[in-house]
């Protein structure tokens, strides 16, 4: 069979192993090199992935593993996230015990994500997810000296295991009722499968597992605690890679395995989305801990993305993918700053960021850009993404009251979010009390990572065309035609909205 399809996965794994082995020879003083090496590797692979090296479409492992526009789209972002996070580790390497392992684990998690992006079978999906999750158990609790980190780890462990238990049971039921676990084969029989309650229960349980990954209400409980407790860089990777992987699988299952059933469930997804975004926005208001704030904010953002999925249309999927792209840059920029500051101050309370404007312009810029983009304000990436999402929802608001309500709820959510996002900005530039104004030195790698993400945020915000085109292809490769058909049955959206 054609191994070139797996080239990325293989190479990243090798990179991880290399880092582990290299640690045995390299002296502790030069540990930084490992980080650089890992980052460079990721960078090279990234250029390779989005450049010529992108493997042609095809399937492997008897259809379990598929390479298509969607998988390539996501893989690019996974590698990017890995690259940025690894760059960020470099300047913090002294604070991380077992630095090499940390880098390696990040790479292994990346491998899981890469597989997730290509998973075309419930089995592979499960394995990929577990690879990600189990790695993250370790990454979250990596800071063993801090009991917060451990607590977060254990919470993530229990909830994660619970979720995967449900998912496995779900997969069992699916297998039982469908006789197969391959997405394409299931898609072929979804008409009659749609009538079998066992299959539906199984599918629901599987989606529960994915809902846990993307932290959708009511499976979001873990997110704030874990985001707050985990080491900042882990949180960064969790908020970007892991979440994106969740959505990658969600979209695969929803749109390429069971598009018609998804179309029937669009209202359910919509309601979940609205609840999620409102829950996230509301709970974020009184937060003091910035990491916890980001946790709630990531819940809220999952809500917006679910709205896009609920639209069950090409424009909806395009919007979701575009938004995710911008979101990854945005969050990375934010966590880069949070990581630097909180590891310095040993706390991530808002007050720690007071006067950052004077202390380190570049950090302040990074956090500001991130927060403003999250708030969905032009000319940042967040604005365009949100606009596309609202537009996708609006497509059906004309015909379905549910969507109109969702649209307005989303507006309210955005307004609420402004409230706490601007609190962060205010404390950065116009603190209530006078903070210490000792300037903060920022390492080269961190600078690089910051600049990378900030440029990304602005680029996507101002010239989103290339991203949108990519996202559109990816979404189109997702067998959206049947999705549209299925949807047209369910929600009878104006056809013009789809192309």
């Amino acid at each position, binding site marked *: 069979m054609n191994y070139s399809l797996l080239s990325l996965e293989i190479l990243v794994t090798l990179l991880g192993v290399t880092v582990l082995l290299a640690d045995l020879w390299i002296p502790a003083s030069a540990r930084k090199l490992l980080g650089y090496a890992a980052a460079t590797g990721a960078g090279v692979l990234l250029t390779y992935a989005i450049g010529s090296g992108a493997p042609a479409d095809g399937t492997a492992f008897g259809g379990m593993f598929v390479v298509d526009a969607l998988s390539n789209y996501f893989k690019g972002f996974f590698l990017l996230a890995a690259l940025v996070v690894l760059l960020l580790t470099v300047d913090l390497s002294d604070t991380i015990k077992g630095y090499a392992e940390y880098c390696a684990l990040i790479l292994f998690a990346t491998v899981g994500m890469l597989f997730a992006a290509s998973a075309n079978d419930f089995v592979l999906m499960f394995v990929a997810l577990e690879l990600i999750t189990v790695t993250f158990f370790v990454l979250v609790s990596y800071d063993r000296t801090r009991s917060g980190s451990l607590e977060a780890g254990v919470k993530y462990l229990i909830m994660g295991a619970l979720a995967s238990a449900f998912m496995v049971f779900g997969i069992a039921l699916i297998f039982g009722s469908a006789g197969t676990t391959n997405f394409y084969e299931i898609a072929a029989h979804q008409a009659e499968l749609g009538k079998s309650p066992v299959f539906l229960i199984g599918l629901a349980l599987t989606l529960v597992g994915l809902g846990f990954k993307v932290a959708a209400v009511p499976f979001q409980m873990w997110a704030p605690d874990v985001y707050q407790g985990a080491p900042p860089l882990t949180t960064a990777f969790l908020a970007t890679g892991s979440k994106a992987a969740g959505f990658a699988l969600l979209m695969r299952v929803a749109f390429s395995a069971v598009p018609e059933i998804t179309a029937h469930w669009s209202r359910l997804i919509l309601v979940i989305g609205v609840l999620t975004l409102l829950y996230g926005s509301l709970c974020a208001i009184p937060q003091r801990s910035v990491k916890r704030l980001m946790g709630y904010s990531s819940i809220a953002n999952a809500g917006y993305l679910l709205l896009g999925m609920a639209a069950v249309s090409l*424009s909806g999927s*395009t919007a979701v993918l575009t938004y995710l792209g911008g979101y990854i840059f945005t969050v990375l920029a934010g966590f880069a700053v949070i990581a630097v500051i909180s590891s310095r101050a040993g706390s991530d309370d808002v007050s720690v960021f007071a006067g950052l404007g004077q202390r380190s312009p570049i950090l302040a810029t990074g956090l500001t850009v991130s927060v*403003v983009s999250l708030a969905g*304000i*032009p*000319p940042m990436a967040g*604005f365009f993404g949100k*606009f*596309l999402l*609202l*537009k996708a*929802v*609006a*497509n*059906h*608001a*004309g015909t379905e009251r549910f969507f*109109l309500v969702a*649209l*307005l709820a989303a*507006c*309210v959510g*955005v*307004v609420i979010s*402004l*409230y706490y996002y*601007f609190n962060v900005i*205010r404390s950065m*530039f*116009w603190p209530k009390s006078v903070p210490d104004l000792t300037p903060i030195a920022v390492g080269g790698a961190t600078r690089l990572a910051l600049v990378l993400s900030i440029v990304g945020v602005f680029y996507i915000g101002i*010239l*989103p*065309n290339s991203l*949108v*085109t990519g996202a*559109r292809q990816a979404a189109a490769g997702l067998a959206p035609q049947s999705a549209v058909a299925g949807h047209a049955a369910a929600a009878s*959206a*104006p056809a*013009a*909205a789809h192309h």
Partner: protein
Amino acid sequence: MSLSQLLLTPFAGALLVLLVPGNYRVVHRFIALVTTAITALGAVSVFAAFQPGIAGMQFEEQAAWVPAAGFGFHLGVDGVNIGLVLMASLVAFAATCVSWDIEKQPKLFYILLLVMTGGALGAFLSLDLFFLYFFNELALVPTFIMMGVWGRGENRNYATFQITLYLTLGALIGLSGLALLYSQSGANTLDWVTLKAWLAEKPLSGHSQNLILPLLLVGFGTLVGLFPFHSWAAPGYAAAPSATAMMHAGVLKKVGLYVLLRVALPFCPAAMNHWATPLAVLAMGNVLYCGWVALRQRDLFLLLGNSSLAHMGFCFLGLAAANVIGVTGVVLIMVAHGLLAALSFGLAGHLTKVTGTSDIDKLGGLLKTLPFVGGALVMAFLAGCGVPGFANFPGELTVLFGAWKSFPIFVILAAWGGLLIGGVYMLRAIRDLLHGPLRDGSIQGGDAGPWRRVPFLVLLAALLYFGINPGSLSDRIAPSAERIALVKSISAPATVAATAHAAH
């Protein structure tokens, strides 16, 4: 000067200021001043080059942006926005002048001010509704920040919070309306010109219109301060620094009306007919209710804020009338009120700076000590109560003429509000603030020096020019207004019976 150059100038200026290190304060000011001056001159040249009597777009510029989603970058001016562009750039220049002695973080202030200017211009120049919204948001955010940081008064934080909440929610609801327009029209674009042609072929269904219009009215109405979504305005302006109040009350507020003119009127005609009367009622809410509220205000800024809300009422009335006269009147008022609001808030800011208070009860007889500012303020107040010679008069008159046929009763009320209620609070303000004996503690400083007079003189000159020669505006507006108006120009004379019936 091409439109794109005009639009880019402020942003270029902002970038320049950003690049100059923080301690060169004079340089920042200078750059900002020159930039806005260039913008203003450019706008004047465009206005002069604009050919009256042509209904279509002029100086169009187009570029693809996100073809995948059907968004394009499209600039152009017709009668509806040319005057607004001119007004915006003049106000921006004035605003930069009056913020000459900002002490706290001047660099950031000027950057925000320039971004605001660029955003406002972009909103008026963009024919792609997405960019219209984009630039409007871009201009709104600096407003909030400026209020929060450089604002005045003890409850400025709350005012900022309130205005942010209101305007963002309003904008988003309006955006939902636009998004619905995008999907319902099926044109798969938000380019106004394309949409206009497309919808001329296959207009929106009544259902879609009734869905879209309320969103637009509530959303963008909120941005304008349509009763009862107005309570952000007065406290907001009271808390904002002069320049911000000038820019927002003068320019940004008009974007909402502009969108309603551009989108609601031509694209949702049926719904517009259906909602005309309720809208007119709300307009009365602005004219009368806000007027009465203004009667009670003893704070100069609250007074001005409420009076500017009252003026917006005339715009909504003209909008409801939806005929070419009414629409032209609306645009006339938008331009006039932009200049006037900027003038009033600028002068009020100067006065407050000099006397240290904006409480009318603590002031009096200032005309004696501040002959220029006082005199200019008298003119502003008179213009505010619709005295001929200033640009507001022809605007409000035109609106009344336009609305007479459809809403005689509301016109009578509006005339009452404009001529009498307006007259009462404006003259009361002159009486208590400028006339009468000098109150103790009123005076700690002098009148505006020659340079400080420039912004006010510029605005006054514009007000007077358009007041004495409104034709220079209306001849540009009318043809384009004809295109978006629902009721085409009224055939005169109407049947007397109808009029008699309508009037009673």
